[in-house]
Each structure stands twice: as structure tokens, then as C-alpha cells.
């Protein structure tokens, strides 16, 4: 069956079996292996992607459900300023150990930081409630998001450019 959607900014059209899950189309047909499968029950969030700008669990969607929608994976967000800040902060603060939940964590955090005002730690924890991490105990993840949030909200874009973090 024909599926038309926008993937990471490009218009795509492919023939898919209707039962195929979005995660499998992204991984198998488009090679987007940032998207991980971690549970069968839509709990762990390792498969999180953005559909029409909002995080959803791609293992819990038929690919056909994104007909005419816009899908973004971690690969497609690499030029986003907010995502760059987040990634730097995750690396600096060790917001990952094994790295398997990381793409999903980054996407949920990205969505949180998009709202353009400061988040408190409770909001950060709630934003990643649908993403399970077994390694870090979330401590360094919350710290990473916290720092990215501070950078984005307390520093003007010009200052960031000067520090070389804006590019």
C-alpha cells in the first residue's frame, strides 16, 4: 500500500505492507537506525520519533498512520540548534552509559525544550517519563537536560554563537 509522508524534511513515497510498524519502515526501508526497539508494550520510549512535531512511540504505530504527516528522527534533527545544545550537554554530563535509550531521551527532551521557557526538575522528569533508562538512574540525564535548558533560556543566542555553541 502506498505511504506518502515527509521524512526528515524530504517528501517520501513507498509501498509498505499495512501491518508494518513505523519503526520497521524507518529502520529497514530508510536505514534510520537511531530508532531503537526496547519493549513490546510502548513503555521504554527507545523508539521515540517526532510526528508532526510531537514525540510518539514509533513501535506503537502502523506506518500507515503517518500518511501525509511529517516524521523526524534524531538523524533529521541534527541541524537544530536546541538538539546541538542537548547533545553537547549529554556528552559533557554523561547523560548516557550504554547509549541505547539515548535517541529517545534526546527527542523527548528536545520537545520539552521547544516550549521556550525554563523547566523545573519535575517538568524534566515528567517529560522523560515515557523513556526508560536502566543505566544512569536518570540522574545524569536530568542534569544534562537541566544544563541544556539553562543554556537555552539564560543565554542569548549571540552569546552562544560567541561560545561556538550556536552553530
Amino acid at each position, binding site marked *: 500500500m502506498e505511504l506518502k509522508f515527509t521524512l526528515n524534511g524530504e517528501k517520501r513515497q513507498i509501498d509498505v505492507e499495512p501491518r508494518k510498524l513505523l519503526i520497521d519502515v524507518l529502520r529497514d526501508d530508510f536505514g534510520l537506525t*537511531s530508532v531503537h526497539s526496547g519493549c513490546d508494550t510502548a513503555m521504554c520510549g527507545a523508539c521515540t520519533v517526532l510526528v508532526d512535531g510531537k514525540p510518539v512511540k514509533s513501535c506503537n504505530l502502523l506506518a500507515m498512520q503517518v500518511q501525509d504527516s511529517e516524521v523526524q528522527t534524531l538523524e533529521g534533527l541534527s541541524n537544530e540548534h536546541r538538539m546541538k545544545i542537548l*547533545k553537547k550537554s549529554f556528552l559533557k554530563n554523561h547523560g548516557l*552509559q*550504554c*547509549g541505547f535509550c539515548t535517541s529517545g531521551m*534526546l527527542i523527548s527532551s528536545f520537545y520539552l525544550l521547544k516550549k521556550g521557557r525554563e523547566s523545573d526538575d519535575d517538568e524534566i522528569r515528567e517529560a522523560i517519563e515515557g523513556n*526508560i533508562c*536502566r543505566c544512569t538512574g536518570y540522574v545524569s540525564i536530568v542534569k544534562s537536560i537541566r544544563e541544556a535548558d539553562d543554556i537555552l533560556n539564560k543565554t542569548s543566542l549571540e552569546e552562544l554563537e560567541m561560545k561556538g555553541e550556536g552553530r
Partner: protein
Amino acid sequence: MSTFEDKVNGRGLFIDDVRLPDMQYVAFFRSEYARARVKHVKADFTSRDLQGIAAAAGEGSESDVRTPFREPILAGDVVSYVGQPIAAVVGRTKYEAEDKLSEVEVDYEPLEPLVDPEGAINSEPILPDAESNIIAENYLGKDFNVDASVVVEERLYIPRILTNPIETRGLVAHYDGNNLTVWISTQSVYSIKEAFSRSLSLDPDKIRVIQVDTGGAFGLKGGFYPEYAVVALISMRTGKPMKWIESRSEHIVASRPGRGAIGKIKLYADTRGKVLGLKGDIIVDAGAYDTGMGSFAASYIAYQLSGPYAIDRQYIHAVSVATNKAPLGPYRGAGRPEAAYFMERMMDQLAKRLAIDPIDVRLRNLSSSSFVSPTGLKIDPARPFFERALREMEYERYRGMKPGVSFFVLVPAASGGEGCKITVRDGLVHVWLGGSTHGQRHDLLVSKIVSSELGVDRGSIVYELSDSGELSKGIGAWGSRTAIVGGNAVIQACRKLKDEIVKEKGGYSPSMLTDLNKSVEVFADFRGSLNSFGANLATVQINELSQVDVLDVVCYYDVGRAINESVVREQIEGGTIQGIGQVLSEKLAYGKDGQVLTSSISDAGVLRSTDFRGRITVKIAEFPSDLPHGAKGVGESPTIGVPPAIVSAIENVSGVKILNTPIDPLSLTRRENE
């Protein structure tokens, strides 16, 4: 391997990312019964087509498994646990493979399962060729009679807990007609290679095992599983590369959970709280087959039961019992948390009985000199460490909050040493270790040691994941061992490389090194152990619905020397949450019929980001070991020390005696009705 930069950019190479031309997918048909006779099976691959045993591998598998308890790679005439693989099918996609499962036919004759380990001790054997359900039995220490004014006796229990890494098990196997190559998510390519060789009777020289990015393991991925052998055999039969990725549902029923231990402990003491003797039964629910860990766990718990305490008389009966459940495996700590939980709970019970401060009871039983227990456990002077720990954890400051305190000894699996290979090629220094990271940031350990030993900058050091085709001999990453023996192996390899260059060139400089193309390999042997102390303090608050909020966890652990302090801290933070989970929620639940009641990763009790919002304070104690880098272990310390401290705090605040985890909130509501 992919770097951490790669991982935040979504460019890791995890096992499900490995694709080979013409690769096919394997799916398993699994037993629906805990115990049944299998009368008829129809499928692509059954026990008639594929024969072999799942060889023991990984932590606890030193001894060879006795015949009646070996797990066949596909069940034959009997199935012994829900989830046991009976047949395999192959598809060009995983969709097609799962479709084929619906065509598999199995006729069972259900049998009465044994699920209670204590009851199974004297029941008819569940396995046809076994004489009893006792997989292993040992008596440690020496029987004694002692005139004690107080005897405290309790039965304590920790249920089975799933390892639940976010990446499940998986492998790709390719047999090219001559050699078997396996890509796998693992803690040890060497144990996997050896187990393949033993399971399939293959020449080890024709097997290469390559580790890919490993998405967490926690003990799960040091082992060898029936599925691995089946996938390789199917590749050998078909000549095609085969992939198997475990689903979470499979992980829940058919992977190997840890813990699952009962401790019936008796402390004999005088009225001042000095323990005169320790007796006990350790009963481990080993599951249907022995995987090494199954037979190892009970004695291992018994061996280190007395922990940091100087108890002169000890007599402990350790028994591993077969039940109709998935075989037992190691889960972060693997015997150590069980021992510490049992002992620390008992110290608190003794204190309560005598109405003595639990801190004083502990102090009374700690020695200021080294001690060797009747079971053979060697410890350093414990009393000065504990006194210092109380100060460092600011015990007095928390006192008003009725904190729980625990004290333990970490017994790392250091014995056996580790291998390391360094290859200098085109200006880059590539390093392979016998046991490689599945989240512990060994890349930072390696780059710090190599840069300080060889003077090269960190940018030119490439940390590689394990590959049996590169480094010929290694052990694996488990039991808090890598910083100790892996670190030492890296140092020995660096020094060997430097010595050879000095011999050849008459001198050494970093630029001389990077101009060369050269390779060295070492195996740095290590015998004995490097036991280290740790202490925890925890405070809790209990709400009107008896829900426990953990407020503060303070950790004071001896790590020898912290090679990278933030990595040490993060290992402790992550392990602390697992320890909290063990106390509050984690459990693999079985019905009386042996069916698995746990239905998902959440149902298994893995904590989410909103389940713990308390504070973790990490204080690192550095009492360097004799190794050149001074390191000791740390990875398992939090799962050992945190649970007893939290349970103790809950007991102090609620006034309710707690023997088992996870804590049922209802048990805490009794306080009001009493």
C-alpha cells in the same frame, strides 16, 4: 566501536543494526507450560534436527554443569519452564518468521510443576535423569555449639528480578562453510566463543566472536543461551547469515533472572550484641537447568554471608534447587546483594531484640585487624572504615530522620586476570580488552591509562570493543572486575610495548610510538581477590497510603583509586536506582502453576524517571590496592549496599519488621491498627 559522539548522533552499531546480505530471521516457539511432556512437534527446526546443550558461560560458570541439569538447546521430550525453546522457524523478515510460528504444532501432556524451591528440595525430580532436584549442595564453615544468651532467627527472601537492559539479547551468526562468525551484544566474547565450541563441538579456532555496541547487560549478557546455539546451527545448516533479536516478552519469560534466594539465618549473640556464631540455610531457586550461576549462587552467598563482620563460628548450608522456572542467571551483584541483605537485616533484628543502637551492634562485631572467616572470606580491618564511613556520611546529621545504615564488603570477580591488545597503526593506538563496555565507559578508563603510560594524547587512542579475532585470550566484564584486572592488563600491555620499543630503538617517545606499526598482546594474570568495603545511609518518608519515598541515599565506597571520578559517581547513581527498585517494586512474579505473571518491563518494576526524585550523595573513599593503578571494584557496590540501608530506614520509620522485598505497602499499614 562507535564512540559516544556517534551514539548521541544515533550512529551506534547495536546488534539489531547489523545487516548482512541474504540474512534471515529466526523466531522461537516456546513452551506454554511450566512442565509438560512433549508428545509431538512439527516445525522447521526441532530437537530432532538440532542437537546440543547450552554450555555454561560467564560469571559463576567455572565448574562444568552436571549432566542431568544441562539445558538442551531445543526441548526434547519434556519442557521444564514457561518460555523454554521447543522449535525454531526462519523467515526472510521478522514478520515472516513470526508468521511461521503460527504454523508450528506442539502437543503437550501437562505435568504438575514445582515452583516453590523449598518444597522442591524433597520432591520428585523434575528432570528425567536427575536423582533429586538438588543441583548443588555445600556446607561451609564448621558446625558448632555455643552458649549464647540471645538467638535471633529469621527467614528472609528476595524474589527473582529481571535484568531488563533496554536492549534485549541478540546475535547474528554466519557460517561460511568453514568458519563461524558471530556478532553479538555481550559482556564477553571469550565465554561466548568457548560455549559455542562446547555446545556445538566446534573447533574454537574456527569461531570468531565480535562484540557490537551493547545496550546494557547487568549480568544477562555474560551468559550463553540455547537460542544462540540454535541460531548458529541454522546458519551452519543453511549457509545463510541468521539473526535473532529477543523481544521483551521473551526476555520476561525466557531470559535468566537473578536473585531468587531465601536465607534462613540464625545469629547467636551475647547480651551486648557480640555475635558468637552464625548458622543458616541459603536456598537458591535455580530454575529448571543449571547455567553455572544456578549451582554457584547458593555457596557464593554463604561464602560471603558474614560480610565485614568478624564472626568466629559459622556453619552454613547452601543449596541450589531446581524448579520449573527459567534458569537462574547473574543480576548486577550476583550473590553479593543477597548476602549483604541477609546479614544486614539480621544485624538490625539483633539490635532490635537487644534494644541496642544498630550502629553499636555493628561496631561490636567489627574487627580492627584483618580477618579470615570460617568460610574463607578475607577482609581488611573493618572497624576503622565503618567509623570513618559514619563521619563521611554525616550519620549524626541525619539521625533525627531515623536513617537506615548498611555496611558491606564487595567481593569482586577479579581472579583470573584479563587480556589486552594494543595495535599502533597509522598514528592511532587501538586497544582491545577481554571484557568490554556495556555502559561502564571503559573507553575513558582505557584512554586515561594509555595516555598516562605512553604519553600519547587521548585523541589518538581508539578504544575497541572485544573481538576474539583480535585479542586471542580474555575473560569478560562482570563482577566489578574491569577497572581492577582490565585496567591492570592495559598497563601491562603499555609497558610491554614501551619496553619493546626501548629495546629496538634504544629509547622511547610518544612520537616514536605513533610513527610505528606495531602490536602487543598480554594476559595479565591475577589471583586472589581485592575485597573492598562500602557503607550506605538512607532516609525515607512514608505517606498516608504507606508509599515509601526515598529521600536521601548516601554512599561511601572504597574504590581503591578512582580512575575517572565522574564515571565512578555515575556507576553508583545508576546502581542506586536499581537498589531502590529492588526494595520498592522489582520482582518477576510466578503463579502457582509456574506461569509468568509479570507482563511488561513496567510490570517488572523497573523505575521510571518520576519514581525517585530524592538525592544521591556519593563520597568516594580511596584506599589504593597494590596494583599499579590502585583500583578496586565499584560497579556492584550500590546494588549490594543500597537495599539493606533503605529497608532498614523503612523499618525504623514505620516500626514494622521487614524481611522480604519488594515491600508490600499494606505490610506497612499495620502500624496504625496495632
